């Protein structure tokens, strides 16, 4: 079974090829079958491979399949090789499993759209690229997938291309992440110069012998890789693209901008763990970036009105938790949270999609309301998913992973990170239930019609189940890949921390209920108060990062290209040509056409020459 591993990515890739070549010729039904089926095959192969890997473990718990040698230039010889170990298996499971459900849901969501086939071809290409990313055993191969998912993200955000705003959101996403990618590429150059290889296993094996702990070079490499990770995972300071990316169809937001692609940064750092452990400073900064992002995103989410943007900021903040976990050395907990987050965030996005479609593409939560009767399935999905997001104790998947992160941060002595996480959890509860209370309770604002059909109910139901404690029971097989975090088997203290974080979550929910159920008098007063109003605007603008980048980068760039549109260097050269031309004009005037003038100049010239000859 393991030697069929290549099918995992080949199947979506073939799906992409068939759909893109056959567009316009195949019906929507067939396109849906191909698009969803290819991911289904991929998921089944992953399952089979996973079972075999876990039941017949090899010495290092990994299986490598060499496809072909990409190139060989001197000592640089990257391979196309797939490596399946606990970490990549977990990622593959999330990508193909959750991916399959989202594809299935999308076949309902996108029905009737004229770009149906195109949509599924992009989605399949995305899954294939994402699998490249997690299966590649070489950093260059990983980079291949890394850029590939970026492209698909671009294509899917701008999927409804008629609206220029979507196009600009898509470009923003690609370019901002590309900035991160470029840092990462430079990191790869530096790594190659130092270690002479980009093979992950080889590099991780030789790195501890090559670098001293905390040496400048390895710190630089780690920071550059972190640059790539923050770009892809929408962390500070490259987080600005994610909220805009919600311009894409909702299944895209679920798959790419919640469950899989945005967590690639977490995967990258986990994959290159050895380098980060050699650079404690960089690792510490991973945690700080995570903590800062989760707070920033939490505050921003408090005042957003667009249902998808709220979820986008919550994604940002949950990935902040993962970064925080990585920074605290809770490697396994980070990946565990990545997995549970994929479940409940996909659920939230899909049900948000159901709500949006039911309300005729309305996304403003304040124009919705009282939907719990009309849309029972999305309502319960939101309740369960939202609780998981807030980590309601014991019942939800999110609790098990988030609690582990907080406990390990605490146990590892990262009190600052722990407190940030705890406060973030409080914010999460407030904004999540603000959303739920506003959309599903209160007065009915709009007419809504519920979806139906297996491709609508099944994905939601499965994800709903996985978002409860059932999802928390799944333990990713990471023990051979990543070290155990600090405070393993904490006992008494761990229990207390769990209790504390659980209380905070419940408190947050209660506060949200207090504020947003009923007629919201206090909130209205707060919004109009002298302090609340500007603060609200500041939060609403996500702390003004967009404004800052616009002033710092976009404006100067546009100014320069506008001023220099006609190429001043060319004008310089043409000015030289122009001056020759005017000299020519002057000299032409001496050509009078009069013989007397010519004779005089001949004579004067002769006199001059003779004089020079005689005098020297």
């Amino acid at each position, binding site marked *: 079974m393991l030697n069929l591993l290549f099918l995992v990515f080949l199947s979506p890739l073939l799906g992409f090829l068939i759909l893109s070549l056959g567009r316009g010729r195949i019906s929507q039904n067939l396109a849906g079958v191909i698009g969803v089926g290819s991911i289904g095959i991929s998921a089944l192969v992953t399952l089979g491979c996973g079972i075999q890997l876990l039941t017949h473990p090899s010495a290092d718990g990994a299986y490598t399949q060499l496809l072909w040698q990409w190139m060989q230039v001197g000592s640089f010889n990257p391979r196309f090789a797939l490596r399946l170990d606990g970490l990549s298996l977990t990622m593959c499971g999330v990508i193909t499993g959750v991916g399959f459900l989202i594809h299935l849901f999308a076949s309902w969501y996108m029905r009737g759209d004229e770009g149906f086939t195109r949509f599924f071809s992009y989605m399949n290409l995305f899954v294939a690229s994402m699998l490249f990313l997690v299966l590649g055993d070489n950093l260059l191969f990983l980079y291949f997938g890394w850029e590939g998912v970026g492209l698909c993200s671009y294509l899917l955000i701008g999927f409804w291309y008629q609206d220029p705003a979507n196009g600009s959101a898509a470009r923003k996403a690609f370019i901002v992440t590309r900035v991160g990618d470029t840092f990462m590429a430079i990191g790869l150059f530096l790594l190659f110069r130092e270690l002479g290889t980009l093979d992950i296993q080889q590099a991780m094996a030789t790195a501890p012998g090559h670098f001293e702990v905390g040496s400048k070079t390895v710190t630089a490499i780690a920071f550059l890789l972190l640059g790539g990770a923050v770009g892809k995972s929408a962390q500070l300071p490259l987080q600005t693209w994610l909220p805009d990316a919600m311009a894409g169809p909702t299944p895209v937001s679920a798959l790419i901008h919640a469950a899989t692609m945005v967590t690639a940064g977490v995967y990258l750092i986990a994959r290159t763990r050895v380098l980060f452990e050699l650079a404690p400073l960089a690792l510490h900064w991973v945690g700080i970036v995570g903590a800062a992002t989760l707070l920033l995103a939490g505050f921003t989410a408090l005042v957003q009105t667009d249902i998808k943007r709220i979820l986008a900021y919550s994604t940002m903040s949950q990935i902040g938790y993962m970064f925080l976990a990585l920074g605290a050395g809770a490697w396994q907990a980070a990946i565990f949270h990545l997995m549970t987050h994929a479940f409940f965030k996909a659920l939230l996005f899909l049900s948000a999609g159901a709500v949006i479609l039911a309300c005729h593409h309305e996304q403003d939560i304040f124009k919705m309301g009282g939907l719990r009767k009309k849309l029972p399935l999305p309502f319960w999905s939101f309740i369960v998913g939202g609780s998981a997001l807030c980590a309601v104790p014991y019942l939800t998947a999110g609790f098990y992973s988030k609690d582990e992160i907080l406990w390990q941060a605490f146990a590892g002595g990262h009190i600052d990170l722990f407190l940030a996480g705890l406060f973030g959890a409080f914010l999460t509860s407030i904004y999540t239930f603000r959303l739920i209370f506003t959309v599903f309770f209160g007065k009915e604002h709009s007419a809504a019609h519920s979806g139906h059909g297996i491709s609508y109910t099944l994905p939601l139901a499965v994800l709903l189940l996985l978002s409860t404690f059932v999802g928390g029971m799944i333990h990713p097989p990471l023990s051979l890949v990543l070290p155990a975090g600090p405070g393993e088997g904490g006992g008494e203290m761990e229990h207390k921390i769990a209790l504390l974080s659980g209380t905070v979550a419940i408190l947050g929910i209660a506060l949200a209920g207090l504020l947003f159920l009923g007629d919201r008098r206090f909130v209205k007063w707060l919004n109009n108060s002298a302090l609340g109003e500007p603060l609200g605007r500041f939060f609403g603008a996500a702390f003004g990062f967009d404004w800052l980048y616009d002033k710092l980068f976009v404006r100067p760039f546009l100014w320069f290209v506008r001023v220099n549109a006609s190429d001043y260097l060319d004008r310089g050269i043409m000015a030289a040509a122009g001056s020759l031309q005017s000299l020519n004009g002057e*000299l032409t005037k*001496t*050509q*009078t*056409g009069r013989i*007397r003038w010519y004779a005089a100049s001949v*004579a004067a010239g002769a006199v001059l020459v003779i004089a020079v000859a005689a005098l020297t």
Partner: protein
Amino acid sequence: MTPVPLEHSLLLAGTLFSLGLLGILVRRNILFVLMSIEVMMNAAALAFVSAGSRWAQPDGQIMFILILTLAAAEASVGLALLLQLHRRFKTLDTDAASEMKG
């Protein structure tokens, strides 16, 4: 008979040459221009002859004959030009033919 000193004849040749040049510069009638050219040529020829006699070399007189033929050729071409000029522009003014001005 004492030979004429070289300086004298060169002075004469120079004067004639300058007069010819002056004639070209100030006259616009092509006939006079041609005549001035003849004067200049003869001035040059005179210089050759006197130099030849000074050093008792035959070259000076050979050059004189060359210049004589040159002058004849020049006169024929010049007169042909004169006729063309007259036919085209109905005038003998050289400035009228300034069609080549830039």
